[in-house]
């Protein structure tokens, strides 16, 4: 029987390994340089971490959108991050840093934050306090558009697709009926996440549903129908969304 050797981890003998990202470490199985075999522990290479260019075209692209038009105003004081309601929960969500990355076109860095980039809750505290009126809250919308456009496969990978699906349910409800049906939103989202069973399983979830049926909230939408003069409102909202759609496509 062969002695089983432990499988070496990538770059395991690098001191302060935690400071280097996986994809910057290059290791070859059999490496020969100038006729010298350097297989083994001497064939570990670390890609340079020095940024060698700024991509200004990206900045121009953001600037053309309505939500990102004030990107050239930002001077990185940090008032937005300091005001942010999300940052204390997700330290990696940093509006100031995102705006900086967008200014310099540093997509490589931005890519690392795809999973939190959409976390803005739209409280607009940052926009209210920003000394340069950059409107960081809407800049985060620009960021979301960027993430969507440049990192679609990342979005799939991080299971952010569900978020899109839930958004669809929400939109259909609002646009179709002009009312929000919380029960439907809840069950719909759970189904999308493949957690329908939990609705009947855990007591707390079940109770919530029974409660909503009992106090009539679940049927309220059916009973009340659409709001008065909904036709006109819907037309206005559709028109607005169409404009937004063209904006989104223009990016």
């Amino acid at each position, binding site marked *: 029987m062969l002695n089983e050797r432990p499988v070496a981890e990538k770059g395991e003998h690098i001191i302060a390994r935690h400071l280097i990202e996986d994809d910057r470490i290059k290791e070859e199985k059999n490496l020969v340089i100038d006729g010298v075999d350097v297989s083994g522990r001497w064939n570990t290479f670390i890609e340079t971490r020095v940024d060698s260019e700024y991509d200004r075209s990206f900045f121009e692209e953001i600037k053309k959108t309505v939500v990102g038009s004030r990107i050239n105003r930002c001077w990185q004081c*940090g*008032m937005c*991050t*300091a005001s942010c309601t999300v940052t*204390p929960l997700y330290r990696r969500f*940093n509006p100031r840093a995102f705006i900086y990355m967008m200014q310099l076109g540093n997509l490589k860095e931005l890519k690392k934050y795809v999973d939190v980039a959409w976390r803005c809750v739209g409280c607009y505290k940052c926009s209210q306090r920003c000394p340069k009126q950059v409107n960081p809250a809407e800049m985060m919308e620009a960021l979301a558009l960027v993430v969507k456009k440049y990192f679609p496969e990342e979005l799939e990978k991080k299971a952010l697709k569900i978020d899109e699906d839930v958004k669809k349910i929400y939109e259909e409800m609002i646009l179709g009926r002009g009312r929000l049906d919380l029960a439907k939103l809840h069950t719909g989202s759970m189904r999308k996440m493949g957690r329908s069973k939990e609705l009947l399983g855990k007591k707390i979830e079940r109770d919530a549903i029974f409660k909503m049926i009992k106090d009539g909230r679940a049927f309220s939408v059916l009973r009340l129908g659409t709001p008065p003069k909904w036709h006109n409102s819907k037309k206005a909202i559709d028109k607005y969304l169409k404009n937004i759609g063209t904006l989104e496509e223009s990016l």
Partner: protein
Amino acid sequence: MPENILVIGGGPAGLHAANELAELGVSVSLVERDAFIGGNPKKFKYKFLFPDLQPAENVIGELIKKAESNKNIRIYYSSEVTDFKENGKKFDVTIKSPKGTETKTFNSVIVATGFEHFDPATDSKYSYQLFDDVIDIKDLEKMMGEGNFNRPSNGKPPRNVAIILCVGSRDRHVGNQYCSRVCCTVSVKQAIELKEHFPEMEVYIFYMDIRTYGFYEDLYWKAMEEHDVQIVKGRVAEITSGPDNTVICKGEDTLLRGPFEIPFDMVVLASGMEGGPQSPEMSKKLGIELDEHGFLKPANITLSPFKSNKDGIFLAGACTGPKAIVDAIVEGGAAAMNAYIYAKKNAQ
């Protein structure tokens, strides 16, 4: 007959202008809205002036003494200009004082109405006036002038102090887009004074840029190198109450990339300068131009910063923009010279 020149405002610029003119034998009328002369430095009891930390009394006291003792200067305390008319190349001005109303003809006029300290209470995020331990630079200056370095809330020495720069300056949100020029230097000066009084105390300065221009940089270096004042890059967005009677500064450390919420015993807001209500008032009464920042506008900002857009009316000091006392005094002299030339030329 000597020339008659009106000086409006009895701060450093106005006093210096009046003193220079009086030396030339001009009959000067000095109109002051307060019951005392000396302007903001006197009003808020500035104790030491940057950059050499000389007693403010050396400067302001000297100017006041000179003006009060010169027979050529007539000072109208608690007074205001109520009516202003052009009369050929001269000006007919009505001055209202507690002693009555008086109309005089002047050959030329110097406006030196100065500035107002920005009121941090108008920017709610700083919680000024909400917590006793949140004060601004003029409050601290006054406190230190009275020899009091303790916390306003309980009278005990503060263990750590945060100084927040750019309060009411460089901020579209409050409507002041300009840099107030002196607050950085005043703040590092105050940090040094605090450290000299309480060497054990920790002082942190929250900054976006530190603008101790020219030789004022020496003070900034001194604060760091001799007094261990720590600087942190990031603007503070919220001040809330903390445990053990502290106030918490919430901000972002933009260099380390991340939010902080740190309790301090005392917070000093480096509030800037504003044109105040007097600038638009002067603009309206005298018919001179106001700039987009709310200060009086010089005819040519580089060639003649001491002239208004109207012939015969001159400007001096912080009424044309934020500036240090030394600049105000220099401008007082320049305006005095120009007002004298105008008066001489058009005396007939």
